[in-house]
């Protein structure tokens, strides 16, 4: 760390996010604003400089001679995470790594790769990896009136409640490009604030032309569908299984392929409303 420390740092911040203490420093104070935009949602500035993980962003720019340019560098603790001429790539790498770190190392929350919305006082959770279409489906659920919790992580506490992770939705318009970010307000929706008990797990994936034909899963099978996408499952097996067991105690689960997200969103909300009435 001494080697990195000696590079010289001009600005930094320490903050708390989902129980993880994070430090970010840079040699160029002018990019601090751009760094803050990359932090996880609901971060809070911390008074103490003691952190669990330290990111160091070295902005390259012009070298000693006019024809020399320096690489932009990103370190996560001692590890070099990015080395590129494109500063945006470094910022993207910071955002990705920070997000993953928090999801894996949060001491008090279990992060499940999933979309999550609130409906009638309970959470609907849609587990799945990239390309399963969960962001698109979450966007449609929000447009249909559900409260936005996340398109990336369902964040469970030890009581099995789902907390918000309300980052801007990342909706993919092109398969090979990074998703475009949409704040939930742009979809006419709002973000949830308080934790919700889990109501329904929807295990689904997009297949063009597919019919919505949900079959019921048992609570245990629903827990497995969540565990399959649980980030700290190997690092914190007890806590992960505890949270998911609690979550599924009063929740149900369904599985179905789906066609277009608009119709799937309507089907999901109707299913819940029909059960409630």
């Amino acid at each position, binding site marked *: 760390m001494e080697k990195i420390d000696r590079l010289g740092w001009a600005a930094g911040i320490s903050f708390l996010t989902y129980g993880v203490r994070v430090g970010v420093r840079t040699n160029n104070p002018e990019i601090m604003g751009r760094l803050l935009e990359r932090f996880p949602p609901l971060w809070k500035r911390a008074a103490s400089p003691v952190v669990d993980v330290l990111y160091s962003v070295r902005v390259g720019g012009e070298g000693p001679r006019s024809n020399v340019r320096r690489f932009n560098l990103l370190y996560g603790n001692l590890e070099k995470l990015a080395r590129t001429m494109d500063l945006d790539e470094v910022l993207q790498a910071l955002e990705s790594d920070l997000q993953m770190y928090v999801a*894996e190392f949060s001491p008090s929350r279990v992060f499940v790769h999933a979309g999550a919305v609130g409906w009638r006082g309970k959470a609907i959770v849609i587990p799945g*990896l990239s390309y399963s279409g969960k962001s698109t489906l979450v966007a449609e659920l929000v447009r249909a009136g559900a409260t936005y919790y996340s398109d990336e992580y369902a964040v469970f506490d030890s009581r099995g409640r789902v907390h918000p992770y309300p980052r801007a939705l990342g909706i993919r318009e092109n398969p090979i490009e990074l998703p475009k970010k949409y704040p939930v307000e742009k979809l006419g929706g709002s973000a949830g604030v308080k934790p919700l008990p889990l109501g329904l797990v929807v295990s689904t994936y997009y297949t063009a032309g597919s019919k919505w034909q949900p079959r019921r899963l048992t609570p245990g099978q629903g827990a497995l569908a969540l565990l399959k996408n649980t980030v700290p499952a190997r690092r914190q097996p007890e806590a992960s299984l505890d949270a998911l067991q609690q979550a599924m105690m009063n929740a149900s689960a369904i599985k179905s392929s789906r066609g277009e997200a608009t119709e799937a969103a309507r089907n999901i909300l109707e299913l819940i409303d029909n059960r409630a009435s």
Partner: protein
Amino acid sequence: MQKRIEQLVPHARKEGLVVKQMPDEVLVYDLDRYEAHCLNQTAAVVWKHCDGRTTVAEVARILGKEAGTPVGEEVVLFTLDQLRKVGLLNERAARPSGARAFSRRQVLGKLGAAALLSAPLIMSIPVPTAAVSSTLPCIPEDQCNGNEPNVGGNNCQPCHTTGSSDCAKRCRRKPGSGAPQGQCVGVPAGTCT
């Protein structure tokens, strides 16, 4: 041989497992194999009584009492086979030599229509690493040629088969591969990491 099957005393594995009870099911996380299982009520009852003292015949009687209908030893043996396959029985609980293996259809037939819902079932999943469960942008499989652009840092994108979240092929920069920064190295199809 019939006598040996009746007298078989199965023994459940307990080490290296995290077990959580649900109302009618049991969740089991295997810390050694990084697998998780959901045992339905029948499978859970059988596993619970694999205590190294209870014979197959006795387990069948216990199951029958809970199901409200007589249950043959074939059901227990089938369940033991399933438990053995997923590593939830101790090694010494091997199937007796010459004992038949039963299919799920045969077991359902033995249970009868009244007890169909109680057919033993074990559902299993691999437990992912944090990296696998993370979000990396995907590109279509036919565009994955081992030299993907370095989007989002030095991690390369997984390839992806259309309509599924399982990758058929991944392009990822291997540490120590000698590939220059920002270049991806292809891995063989079928090896999702």
